[in-house]
């Protein structure tokens, strides 16, 4: 059934940048802790490689992309892979709303980075809920 499709979450794959790490931590929090039944994580690197399962996942479900910088690789790759970006999230935009959570660290985020990732994850979870609700509404109509 159409409304059983899980929302795809595609985070930045940038290595060596705190903002990239924040994006991935937020994606893990949504897909593993907050909304495991309603969302699924797709690795950006698999889309870059043209992995068939990853491409099928983004082609079959709305996606929430999380970009660590203005290059917006996650958003671009989902679109190039035939997917639909339902919501673009930029770490910098979220950080501007949570100035008290300054992210630092790369392999291991500081407390501020973890709090920023958690705040972002809660917002994305709400987006997942809204998208799922919209899908259910469309399926029931």
């Amino acid at each position: 059934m159409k409304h059983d499709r899980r929302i795809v979450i595609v985070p930045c794959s940038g290595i060596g940048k705190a903002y990239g790490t924040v994006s991935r931590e937020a994606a893990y929090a949504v897909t593993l802790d907050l909304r495991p039944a309603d969302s699924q994580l797709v690795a950006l690197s698999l889309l870059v490689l043209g992995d068939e399962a990853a491409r099928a996942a983004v082609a079959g479900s709305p996606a929430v992309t999380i970009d660590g910088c203005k290059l917006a690789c996650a958003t671009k790759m989902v679109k190039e892979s035939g997917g639909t970006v339902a919501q673009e999230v930029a770490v910098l935009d979220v950080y501007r709303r949570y100035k008290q959570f300054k992210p630092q660290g790369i392999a291991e985020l500081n407390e501020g980075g973890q709090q920023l990732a958690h705040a972002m994850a809660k917002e994305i979870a709400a987006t997942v809920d809204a998208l799922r609700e919209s899908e259910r509404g469309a399926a029931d109509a």
Partner: protein
Amino acid sequence: MPDFLETTVDKFTFKVAKDRYYTGEGVWAKSEGKRVRMGLSDFLQQRSGDVAFAEVKPVGTLVGVGDEIAVIETIKVNVSLASPVHGVVAETNPAMATSPEGINQDPYGAGWLGDLEATDWEADRLRLLDAESYFRLMKSQAEEEAKKL
């Protein structure tokens, strides 16, 4: 729209507006009547990265040359910016509170930081670099940065 000097180093293109003066650190100053408007050069904004926050000293603050006039926080670093002139902060760019990305998008226009009532612009101007001099300095700085990549 100002004319620009332009150079490409590695994969990055940098512009220097011809119609203003610069500090060696990349803060520009442009005389506009009794006021001097200031902001970041294209090279400085690109080297610093995407701006998250920009805080300019409040209106009425008295600053000397070299005193901190603003601080920007980017995804890479915090940058303290030194005032290019003596004077009093007369106006700050209100857009900096809500959309500091203007610094990255339009460093010589909408991304201006503040206006100062300069105490002695003509004297301060002599200590600044004209566009051609800053362009040469900036190009050498950019080439040095590129060697580190």
